[in-house]
């Protein structure tokens, strides 16, 4: 927990003596746009073990979905470009693999669930057929056998009357049922890693909880590594083991779920947690993080969060903080992580009354 411990040699959640399932090291992804090169991911690090749920948390544009697509190898290139880093699945670098062997990993070993299940299912094919296709394409099963397996998968994800409903089309199902079908397709071949890109965003709150519960149950049953990508702090709290908080294409903080919610070690995480409306906070203003995330084509120097940070100093605008340990299994990319963690950091600025940025001064903004 000293200053000398830097990020080299550590990736979030490294457990000694246990080979990681998926390891992302210093990943960099760029997009060529008319406005210049947009750096969507700048040096991303994380590790995923079997049976573990890693939640990648971040606001829009922080690079969550790009991360998922890069791992799956379905990023559109161009305009996307992987500028550096490696993604290791069981020690093998996915980025140097040829397309055919990667394709064989997709679905079999690493599968993905998308946000909007309706648009992720082919509207002209019956759902049972679509699940059966997984078995036919990857396992070379016969139609009848594959269909039986598809019905079995539908039962497994809790679709009532699976036998009769296998012939139905996606639009005949409710939102929650569609997401279950998507999940059935993704877990059909018993993958090691399941990436869920905002799996519940398009669903009602009650259905959200059911789907999350289902994902969690399946994860335990199949001992999958689950990467849960979301912007919803509430969804994560219940199911995640570890959380990596992303901002501007970097992991700002990574730790166990209790640590993150209890003792955040990064001002950004703190800001996110403070912005949750509280039931015991009567009539007050919502404490939003002032300002906007930086443009990906024009990153601030030093720490990407510095323009919005209450604790920012000159050091933050010049020197880029690396991820380092602040406590057992708790990493943070902040120069003052220890102080933030301990709750003793000194405020240098406060949000401007317009909410558009920060101004100097340490007092709370007047209500």
């Amino acid at each position, binding site marked *: 927990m000293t200053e000398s411990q830097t990020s080299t040699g550590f990736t979030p959640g490294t457990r000694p003596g246990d080979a990681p399932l998926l390891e992302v090291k210093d990943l960099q992804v760029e997009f060529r746009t008319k406005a210049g090169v947009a750096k969507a991911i700048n040096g991303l690090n994380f590790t995923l073990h079997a049976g573990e749920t890693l939640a990648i948390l971040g606001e829009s544009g922080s690079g969550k979905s790009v991360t998922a697509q890069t791992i799956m190898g379905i990023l559109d290139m161009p305009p996307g470009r992987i500028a550096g880093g490696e993604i290791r699945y069981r020690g093998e670098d996915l980025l140097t693999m040829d397309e055919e062997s990667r394709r064989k990993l997709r679905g079999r070993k690493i599968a993905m669930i998308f946000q909007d299940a309706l648009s992720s299912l*082919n*509207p002209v094919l*019956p759902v049972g057929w679509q699940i059966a296709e997984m078995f036919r394409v990857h396992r070379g099963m016969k139609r009848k056998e594959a269909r039986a397996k598809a019905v079995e998968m539908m039962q497994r994800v809790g679709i009532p009357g699976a036998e009769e409903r296998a012939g139905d089309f996606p639009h*005949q199902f409710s939102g929650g049922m569609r997401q279950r079908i998507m999940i059935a397709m993704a877990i059909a071949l018993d993958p090691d890693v399941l990436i869920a890109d905002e799996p519940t965003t398009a669903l009602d709150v009650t259905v959200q909880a059911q789907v999350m519960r289902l994902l969690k149950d399946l994860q335990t049953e199949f001992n999958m590594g689950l990467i849960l990508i979301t912007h919803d702090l509430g969804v994560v709290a219940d199911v995640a083991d570890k959380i990596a908080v992303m901002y501007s294409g970097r992991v700002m903080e990574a730790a166990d*779920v209790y640590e993150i919610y209890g003792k955040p070690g990064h001002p950004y995480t703190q800001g996110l947690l403070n912005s949750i409306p509280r039931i015991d906070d009567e009539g007050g203003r919502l404490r939003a993080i002032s300002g906007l995330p930086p443009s990906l084509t024009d990153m601030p120097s030093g720490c990407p969060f510095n323009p919005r940070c209450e604790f920012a100093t000159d050091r933050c605008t010049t020197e880029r903080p690396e991820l380092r340990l602040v406590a057992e299994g708790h990493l943070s990319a902040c120069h003052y992580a220890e102080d933030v963690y301990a709750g003793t950091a000194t405020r240098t600025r406060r949000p401007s009354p317009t909410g558009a940025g920060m101004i100097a001064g340490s007092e709370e903004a007047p209500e």
Partner: protein
Amino acid sequence: MSEIHRPEARVEPIDSTIEPVGGSATSKTKKVEEASLLADAWRSLRRNPWFIVSAVLLVLFLGMALFPQLFTNNDPRECLLGRSRQSPSAEHWFGTDVQGCDYYSRVIYGARNSIAVGFIVAIGTFIIAVVLGLVAGYFGSWVDAVISRITDMVFAVPYILGALVFLNVLESRGVREVAFVLIIFMWPTMTRLMRGSVISVVNSEFVLAARALGAGPITIMRRHILPNSLGPVIGYATVFTGIIIGAEATLTFLGVGLQLPAISWGLQLSDAQPFLQTVPHLLLFPVIFVGLTVFAFMTMGDAIRDALDPKSKK
């Protein structure tokens, strides 16, 4: 941190069987409406009066093309110059033409060649359009650029001009030759339509999902893109058949289409032209038949396109 931030205080274990209980009740009543895409399209077609009208007309014309004997007992090639240019009568419903042939039977027998050209060209262009459109739309980049520019170049040549040049040098011109030349010059429109339709599907989420679950390019094209992009092209192909029948009549009228002794509506129009003022019915009957056929195909095409397009559903 307040109570609310502690994870254990957050969510009670949730019973994931809540929805299934409600769901099974609805699954019993769902047999009311089967809803595959084709069943859906068929249901909406049956309710469309324009479809009924065009279907009846098409059955009639197809019957003429396949079994002209059912419609007339007269031999269209039995011509007696002695009864040249007679007016319609009980014996000869449409009168007789210059050569003294029974005009009704000639018009009936003319359906075969016209419709044959229409179908051959429509099927030929459909195949070209689907293959080229799929490849261009799916692969994009330079493949798309090459195919699209070639399409544009052919599109720039008016088919009548192209056909005049090509058919003029051919010694004998039958259905095959005319159809071939029409395919050569008329495939671009449908190819463009198919390409656009494919592009709108390629970027949809279910294609991305299929890729993410390990489907290869062939599977994606065949199972996911093709069935979702064919709708507008099928509709257009039907309209196109009508257009081609008109085009065949035009070319034949201009003297570069089918040749005597073939029997076709275009030839009848061409032969009738000098007698427009004296025997106008020689022009009138083939015009009515060509018009009705084209109308039937076009109406049918519109109806099919509407039925296959999920967005046009009310």
